[in-house]
């Protein structure tokens, strides 16, 4: 384990992303419920490394009851894995990236050697504009029902006013992301459209035009984490998590500097991101302008390939898009395309909460 231990950097116990799977992201999956969407992905994430549920010691999921419109939907979702014999199990009402963090903490404590993390969310049955307003301050903000596009547009305007970006920059990011997504078989929106053409889009909420918004996506994803002998046995080229942290900013939108991301910068610092160069960054930036804020907060220069998967502008399955960033980064390490990578996940309005995961190969 010496190589892994030296690669472990800021973490005490080396933990690897042993397997990753995701559904093909689509605008609307009417034919499957959440369990039926998860079943093939759970089968794939186990099958790819030749294991079963019996080989993991812990299961953690990420989802939101507000999407399905019923309480405790994560309990029924466990049917996708099988409930007998029972396994220690937990859930977070957050993106699967935070479920992964919980499993990673348990692995750090040394009580377990492997964990399954999965997440799911269907945006299509409900009205995301209204559902996402319910996550806001219940006294001062939610009663006004600001939708996520409007809040993101306030942030984009602040970025333009601060001289940090232009509408042309937003279009360039959207153009590049969806062109990169052409090589991602799971992407929902993939095309080769020049930024100049995108700038002819109408405003949805000014200053954000259609192309600067994420697609609305139904999707699920899963990861198997492994430590110790299992990490070695299940992967010839493990992607080790060498740093992991998440931070949150105040819920008072008007008390934040929306043009920067102090929580991302702090998480990156604590995860040891700047200890060495990274080859790629998988950044969870649902709106095009947010990539600019996050690249600055992560301190990435132009040698880093940003979102080779296409990122959240190519598919934004709510509750899964953050975990998918970690899976995409790990896949590129395991395949040898990258030696060191950073993955990021976000939650809340205008990048309120941010998670940074640093991964390394050997």
């Amino acid at each position, binding site marked *: 384990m010496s190589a892994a231990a030296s690669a472990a950097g800021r973490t005490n116990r080396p933990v690897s992303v042993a397997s990753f799977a995701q559904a093909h992201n689509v605008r609307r999956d009417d034919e499957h419920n959440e369990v039926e969407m998860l079943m093939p992905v759970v089968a794939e994430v186990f099958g790819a490394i030749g294991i079963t549920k019996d080989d993991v010691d812990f299961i953690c999921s990420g989802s939101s009851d507000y999407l399905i*419109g*019923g*309480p405790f939907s994560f309990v029924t979702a466990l049917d996708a894995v099988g409930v007998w014999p029972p396994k220690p199990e937990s859930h977070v009402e957050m993106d699967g990236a935070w479920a992964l963090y919980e499993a990673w903490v348990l692995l750090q404590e040394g009580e377990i050697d492997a964990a399954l993390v999965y997440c799911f969310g269907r945006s299509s049955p409900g009205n995301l*504009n*209204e559902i996402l*307003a319910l996550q806001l301050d*219940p*006294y*001062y*903000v939610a*009663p*006004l*029902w*600001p*939708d996520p596009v*409007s*809040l993101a*547009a*306030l*942030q*984009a*305007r*602040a970025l333009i*006013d601060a001289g940090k970006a232009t509408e042309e920059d937003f279009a360039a990011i959207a153009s590049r992301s969806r062109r990169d997504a052409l090589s991602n078989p799971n992407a929902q929106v993939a095309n080769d459209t020049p930024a100049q053409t995108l700038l002819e889009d109408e*405003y949805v*909420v*000014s*200053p*954000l035009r259609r192309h600067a918004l994420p697609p609305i996506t139904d999707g699920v994803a899963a990861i198997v984490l492994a430590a110790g002998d299992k990490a070695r046995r299940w992967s010839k080229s493990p992607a080790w998590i060498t740093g992991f942290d998440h931070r949150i900013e*105040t*819920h*008072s*939108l*008007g*008390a934040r500097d*929306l043009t920067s991301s102090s929580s991302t910068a702090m998480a990156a610092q604590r995860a040891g991101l700047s200890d060495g160069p990274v080859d790629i960054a998988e950044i969870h930036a649902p709106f095009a302008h947010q990539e600019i804020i996050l690249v600055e907060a992560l301190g990435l220069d132009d040698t880093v390939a940003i979102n080779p998967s296409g990122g959240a502008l190519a598919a934004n399955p709510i509750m899964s898009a953050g975990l998918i960033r970690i899976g995409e980064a790990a896949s590129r390490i395991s395949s040898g395309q990258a030696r060191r990578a950073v993955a990021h996940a976000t939650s809340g309005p205008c990048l309120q909460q941010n998670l940074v995961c640093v991964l390394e190969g050997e």
Partner: protein
Amino acid sequence: MPDSEALHASHRLEYPYSRSVGPVIGAFLTGLRDGRLLGVKGSNGSVIVPPTEYDPTTGDDTGDMVDVGPGGVVESWAWVSHPLPKHPLTTPFAWALVRLDGADTALLHAVDSGGPDELATGDRVTVRFRPAAERIGAMADIEAFVPEGGAA
């Protein structure tokens, strides 16, 4: 099985809780009912609007309530050409972060400015309350902000 034979069950999901808003948020909302805008003193002397029981930067307890506004400055804004059903206005409007006079943080609300060309960051706006008889001690007691001295 034809649709007519399918089993149906109605499902009404609700959380019938009542919440106390406490001494700081409660004071702000009561102020709105009375046509006043209140902030709270933060730990470093700054004035936080809308007020919270703790300083969002330091986490320390906040202090006395102070009057702010009724005018303020637009810190950022976003133009909504097609208001959604639950939005505060039914005609095109701007969401804006408004830093009220005397405050160090900004309040989110709607600005009724007429059109996107009649609004810019840095513009001065002032509050437009609902008529006193309609106010209930909630954010909707503010109908919108309007350009200071403007016709909208």
